[in-house]
Every structure is written in C-alpha cells, then in structure tokens.
C-alpha cells in the first residue's frame, strides 16, 4: 500500500513526537532529587559493608601477628622510613605531578547539547594550563594526559574504578620520579554557576575546592598541605577557594592519597563554568604553589 518511509511518517504524524515542556523539566528535577537521596542511602549501605571490612581486617591483622608478624611489620616500617627521607633536589627534576582520575569531566558552555563530559575538550586542558603556568615560574611539573575513561572502557570496567586505573599512572610516576613533592588530581565538580563562580577585579574565576581523603596515613599531611594552599589563596584571591573538605570515609576511597604526602583532589569550577574561567583559577593556583615552593 505505502512505502515503508511513508508508513513511518504516518506513524510519526499519528503520535505527538515531543513531550510537554513541563514534563521535561519536572522529570529532570525528580531524577536529580532521587540521585541525591540515592547518594545518601548508598552511604548508609556502605557503612555496613565497611563494618564487615573491619572484621576481615582484624582477622588479617591477627594472622599477621600470629604467623609472620614481626618480620612483615618491620619490613613495612623500613620501607616507609626510606621513602620519607627527602632525596636531594635536582633543579630539573619535576616537583609537581598533575593528573586526572576523571579525565572526561568537562564544562557545559564549551560543549554542544548540554553535555558535561567530553573525550577531547575536558578538564585535562585545565591541568595543562596549570602545568604551563608553573613552567613560567620555572617549576617543573609532569602533566599526565592518560585517557583514564578510555582505559576503563577497554578493560570493561565501570566508572567507579577510575581511581584504581589512575593509581597505576600515579604509582609509575612516583617510581620514576622520586622528587615529586606535590600531587594534584584535578576534577571539576557539579555545582551550579552561582556557587562555582566568583568575580575578582572584574574577572570571573571558577571557584576551587580541595578534597582530602580521611582514610589514609597521609591525611594529616595532606590536610595541612591543602589548608596552606587555601589560606594563601584567601590572602591573594579572597573567596576563590571554597576550602578543604574531608572525604573518602563513606564510601571509602583513598583517592590514591596514600601513595604520597602533599596529595590533594582539586575541583576547579562546576559544570557551568568556561575554560577561560577555569584557566584563570589554574594560573592563580600556580602562583600560590610557586610561593609555597619558595618558602620550603
């Protein structure tokens, strides 16, 4: 009777092909609310999982002491001791390591179609800017551009495993470059423009937030490090830093900050910022890091 194309056009004409605007907006709102409450619930669930983990840990610990206890512990202690000895600083040895566990996080205004992730235009560019700004102060930094999310896909892992993959990158760098003194894992967060932007001297900056995992032995050192950056930012760029928050307890995550002291997760801007705003913040951060290195 009709060609297939005609038939499908007829079908399309038969049914309203667009949902109502009210529906589109209200559904997004509902989904966001549910996502937030799920975050809370999953935290409660993880708590029970963690208590189970603690029992396992206790078992493992007692095993360690009953069987090969002392030897193992002294081994661990001596390796820690060796690592904490500051090696002689060579001028050209990189002092700063910058990487991105969630490398595809991006900024909506820079992308088409309300997207917040991109494989090409993403937070990696902000890390690059930070690294370049440090270079201008003669501070040698390694900027890692590994496509973590690409590796996740290759290995058929979920996004939750991002820190496991980025850990490999960090570990390798730390093995090869013993003089790295600071580690920045740069992300962007999901806050809206009002919360993620500040105007300083007529320029919009993407606000910055530091996150420190409470579940590592380096917590005290990392927290002090992040607080120092925060305070210096407050002096030079009041309001730019949202501060330092403790994280990583529920769900438990070290964010790989156990591998090196002076490690911190840095969120630069939210989904509604632009690269320009994020770059300004990266430049400001570099200025503060320069000041800190001079004081060391």
């Amino acid at each position, binding site marked *: *009777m*009709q060609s*297939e194309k005609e*038939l*499908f056009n*007829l*079908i*399309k*004409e*038969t*049914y*309203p*092909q*667009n*949902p*109502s605007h009210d*529906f*589109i907006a209200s*559904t*997004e709102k*509902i*989904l*966001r609310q*549910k*996502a*937030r409450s*799920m*975050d809370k619930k*999953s935290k409660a669930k993880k708590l029970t999982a963690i208590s189970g983990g603690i029992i396992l840990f206790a078992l493992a610990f007692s095993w360690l002491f009953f069987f090969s206890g002392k030897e193992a512990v002294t081994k661990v202690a001596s390796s820690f001791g060796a690592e904490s000895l500051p090696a002689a600083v060579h001028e050209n040895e990189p002092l700063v390591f910058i990487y991105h566990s*969630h490398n*595809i*996080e991006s900024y909506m205004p820079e992308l088409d*179609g*309300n*997207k*917040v*992730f991109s494989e090409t235009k993403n937070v990696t560019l902000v890390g690059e800017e930070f690294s370049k700004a440090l270079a201008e102060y003669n501070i040698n930094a390694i900027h890692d551009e590994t496509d973590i*999310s690409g590796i*996740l*896909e*290759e*290995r*058929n*892992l*979920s*996004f*939750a495993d991002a820190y496991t993959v980025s850990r490999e990158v960090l570990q390798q760098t730390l093995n090869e470059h013993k003089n790295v003194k600071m580690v920045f894992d740069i992300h962007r*967060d*999901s806050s809206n423009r009002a919360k993620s932007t500040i105007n300083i001297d007529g320029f919009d900056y993407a606000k910055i937030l530091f996150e420190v995992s409470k579940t590592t032995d380096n917590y005290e050192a990392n927290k002090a490090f992040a607080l120092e950056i925060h305070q210096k930012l407050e002096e030079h760029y009041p309001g730019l830093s949202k501060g330092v928050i403790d994280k990583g307890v529920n769900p438990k995550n070290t964010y790989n900050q156990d591998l090196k002291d002076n490690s911190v997760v840095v969120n630069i801007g939210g*989904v509604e910022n632009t690269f320009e705003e994020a770059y300004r913040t990266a430049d400001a951060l570099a200025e503060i890091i320069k000041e800190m290195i001079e004081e060391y």
Partner: protein
Amino acid sequence: MIDLKNLEASIAAIYNEHYLDVYRFLVCFSGNQNDAEDLTQEVFIRVLKSLPNFKSGNNLKTWIFSIAKHVAVDHFRKKRFTSVFKDGFFTKLESNAKKPEEEFESTEIEQIIHEAISRLKPKYRAVVILRGINEMTVKETAEILQCTESKVKVDYHRALKDLKRKLNLDAKEVLVNAK
C-alpha cells in the same frame, strides 16, 4: 559519561541526551502522550537505580532502550490485564461509533494507524518502532531485544507485512463503510 561520584550530574546528562528518543519510542508503543510521559519517567528512574551496575564498555543507548522496552512491555501487560473487561467487548461496539471529540482530534487515517499498531504483538511492535521510528541499526535492535540479528530482520519483515495487511484491511473497511 557516568560518574558515580556524582550521580546527579550523570543522570541529568544522560536524561538530557536520551529523553526524546525514549519518549518517541514509548509514545508509539503506548499510543498516547500521557502514558508515554509517565513511562519515560519510569525508564530514567530505573536507569538511575541501575547506573552503578552499568559497565562502561557497553553501549549506553541500547542499554537504556532495553530498559525502555521492559517498561513498555510491563505496562502493556498491566494494561491488558486491567482492561480485559473494559476494553474487550464494549470498546469494539464503541469504535464503530466514534465520539465526536475523537473525530475532531484525530483524522481517520491516524485512527487506523493507531489501531493497527496497537493490535501488533508487543515484540513486533517493539521491532517496528525501534527500526522505523528510532532508526536503530539491526545490531542495536538485536542488542536491545537480546536476540540475534537475523531474528530482528525476520521479525521486522513479518511485523511490517502484518502492519500493512492490517492497514489495508482497515482502509478497505473505511471505504466499504463510506459507500
């Protein structure tokens, strides 16, 4: 595009990218806008809840659509169950004598299309809509319906044939009635 550290941003991004396709699938499947909107919401709520289990190597679009297909078929079953009494006998009587407002809303040909599609078996309906309206490839459709690609091809041709036959019959009926 999934960030479990930030479910809210992830689901918002996924929703914005896919709601229109999902809605279009569901509006053709269910036949009315209200149901389709409710079902679309249901689909994305399920997507959100299963997001932590989604493996990043898989295809997000076909994964979402396989959820949409489940939601659509569930809805069809529930509706069929509750409407056995309401629909079965009386609506057939009614359908010959259409209510005035219905006549005003939909043209005759649209009515025929709607009847023909809603009389297709759900599995045929899904294939026709996925291939014809959502313009999915055979491979994607097979992934969504979790069957082989050759089954998609066979089902698609049977469904189209069936649909055309129904349309032909109905169109003839209209002509006969008009005489």
